[in-house]
């Protein structure tokens, strides 16, 4: 019974939480406010979307927050000379960092939590060096010219939501309809069988981490444009929430099940919890306590203990 219900937990949780918050505070369902809440969470969602690929193969990407930090600086510094071309540089940087983490993990046998943690510090350091440890502001005119489209509203729909939906559709297609997606599933669910079937497991892993890095860069870019600046600490606080979004969405740390749609649900759960904490007047400094505990609960509920063979270190 429990096992049969398990795949449905994320959306049941979402509706239950939204119901509770809505009952306590009916203004929660006010469309304008809701659209604002959703738009606010888009950069986090994009980061979580990328992270899903890393977790789906049974790894994790701890570098996403630092890649996003680095990208906010890159975007701010190079916006003036490059204009919209800075997006290409930013995404390429994220892709490169992710691919490097994938290479270190698959070819050098460094577990992904270490390889991404280490490369995350490299990214952070680049951000600090490039920004001179100062909070930088974007050139207002260039920002308007190159990226104003990101934050417009068409027919009542914020463009951020359209971007999020488009990236979700892209990620879903990649995961469900392509050879890469199938190989990804095989690596996540049974890596040794994938190896024995001649799947290029290393390449799949490198690609999964590269996607995670690229999505983190897109998240950083959006966040930077949104706040109109860059800073080596700008995206701090994203990492925990991105992991929570993936995990409460139902993609377990052991990989192989769940996926990007789960992460969409998971992000909305994070959003509702965050909104609830605002209504409950929980101080911002205390919110990470809640998310830390939610993360542990989510992992404990979703992890596939049969894959761990009783060994956890």
């Amino acid at each position, binding site marked *: 019974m429990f096992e049969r219900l398990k795949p449905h937990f994320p959306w049941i949780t979402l509706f239950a939480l939204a119901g509770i918050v809505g009952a306590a505070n009916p203004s929660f369902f006010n469309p304008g406010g809701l659209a604002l809440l959703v738009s606010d969470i888009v950069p986090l969602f994009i980061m979580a979307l990328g992270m899903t690929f890393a977790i789906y193969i049974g790894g994790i990407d701890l570098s996403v927050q630092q890649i996003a930090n680095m990208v906010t600086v890159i975007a701010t510094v190079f916006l003036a000379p490059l204009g919209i071309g800075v997006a290409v540089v930013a995404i390429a940087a994220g892709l490169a960092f992710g691919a490097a983490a994938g290479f270190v993990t698959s070819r050098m046998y460094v577990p992904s939590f270490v390889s991404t943690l280490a490369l995350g510090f490299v990214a952070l350091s680049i951000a600090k060096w490039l920004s001179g440890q100062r909070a930088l502001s974007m050139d207002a005119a260039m920002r308007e010219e190159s990226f104003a489209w990101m934050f417009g509203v068409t027919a009542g729909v914020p463009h951020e939501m359209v971007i999020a939906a488009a990236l979700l559709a892209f990620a879903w297609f990649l995961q469900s*309809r*392509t*050879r*890469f*997606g*199938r*190989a990804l*599933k*095989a690596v*996540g*669910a*049974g890596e*040794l*069988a*994938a*190896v*024995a*079937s*001649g*799947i*290029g497991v290393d390449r799949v892993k490198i690609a999964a981490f590269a996607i995670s890095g690229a999505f983190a860069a897109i998240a950083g870019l959006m966040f930077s444009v949104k706040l109109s600046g860059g800073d080596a600490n700008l995206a701090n606080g994203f990492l925990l929430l991105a992991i929570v979004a993936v995990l409460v969405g139902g993609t377990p740390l052991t990989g*192989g*099940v769940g996926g990007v749609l789960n992460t969409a649900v998971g992000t909305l759960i994070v959003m509702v919890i965050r909104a609830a904490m605002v209504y409950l007047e929980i101080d911002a400094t205390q919110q990470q306590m809640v998310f830390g505990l939610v993360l542990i609960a989510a992992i404990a509920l979703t992890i596939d203990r049969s894959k761990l063979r009783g060994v956890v270190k």
Partner: protein
Amino acid sequence: MYALEKVDKRFPGVHALKAVDFHVNRGEIVGLVGENGAGKSTLMKVIYGAHQPDGGRIAIDGRAVRFQNPRQAMDHGIGMVFQEQSLIANLTVMENIFLGFERQFTAYGVIDWRAMAAAARTELAKVRLDIDPATITSRLSFAQRQLVELAKVLTIEGRVDGDLVILLDEPTSVLARAEVELLFGIVRDLTKRASFIFVSHRMDEVLELSDRIYVMKDGAVVDVVDRADADADAIQHKMVGREVDKEYYREQKQKPHGGEVLASFEGVSLEGAFEDISFELRAGEVLCLVGTEGSGREAILRALYGLRRPTSGTVTVKGRPVTRFTARDGVGRGIGYLPRERKVEGIVAGMNVHENMTLAQLPKYSVGGVLRVAAERRMARDWIDRLGIKTPSERTDCAGLSGGNQQKVVLAKWRSGGSDIFLLDHPTRGLDIGAKEDVYEMIREMSDAGAGILLVADTLEEAIGLGHTILVIKDGRFRKRFDGTPGRKPSLYDLLHHMI
């Protein structure tokens, strides 16, 4: 002395034990045989306290007992010698023997190693093992480790007043014949202090050692025979419900082969696994590699497939020397590999039937990187029919299929891709009789169709029954080649003689 009365055990969807009556007399060796899934391991687990029965009664000397866990069973004198070696390899022998029972040697939390070593020596003497108790366990041979396990279980003796019952689960599966003799000698000696329950799939050994034999089938005890009346054929008949004979391996379907050479090894070595191995695998041939556990057979298969790179020698596949050793290249050369660990390397649990079948042929089922799922499913339905795979649909998760059907999915993966060299590592391991026969049938069929099959069989009988050619490997080296033409097939003894 120790008795189970009408013991029942159910798991979701399975009635694992059906009113089982079972008893062990003082100093007796009781054999327990049955096919996989007959309920042997469940019965063992009930006996040593890992499972609690749903119904019936367990009695020691007439008094009812109930164990919540193996530790409580141990306190009543019941110990288990595990099949998969349960010793921790990087601990010393004495640490292993007294693992969890160190308190007797400690004062204020500090262990008196001398006292422990002395006690360990006493225990080791019971199993006639003359080794230093401070030896790191990983340095011991398999046979020695098996004896250390036995010694570890025998420590119960010092903690319990009553009699001992010791369970031996497949203790001989990794032992050579001489070591088996040694173990049996020790067990017979120990019957002065303990009773034994001996579980093995080697019928000859069960007959040799046991005073009485319980035969299980489908969760029930179907017969109890005394040693005097025991007859291997009769017992096998009871186990499977029908005769097992030559027909079983489809010998009459074995046809002579005269095909071209599909793959060959010339003086191939892989350090630490095998040395100077040469053979030719021809179209239509079933070539069996025979040897004990760890003799290097699996590594030979993996080297031919591409999962391991030989250190020297020439591997040739279809006339071309192999230079790149990856599984992907192996697939490209038309090789299909059916690994021994079906659930780990064979199928991907969590992926459905068609996803598993196309896993090795994704380029064939995609255009520009986008999958052609309809084509996948069509192919899968076709192979489900051809091989008679029992599954609700091609979209069912492979984890839910029975072992035999999982194996068929793995075979379909390679056959649908047009492989003509098959490397089969223990293809019938863990399958029930019917599923085994299906696998034999398929091996014959593939060989008729001109495929070359390199087989590491689950039993010697299988290798003899199925092989056109049988190569005996010992300690990674080639020992002897036998012709497997019907009528000229070697006997079990011929093979064993060169294996150990």
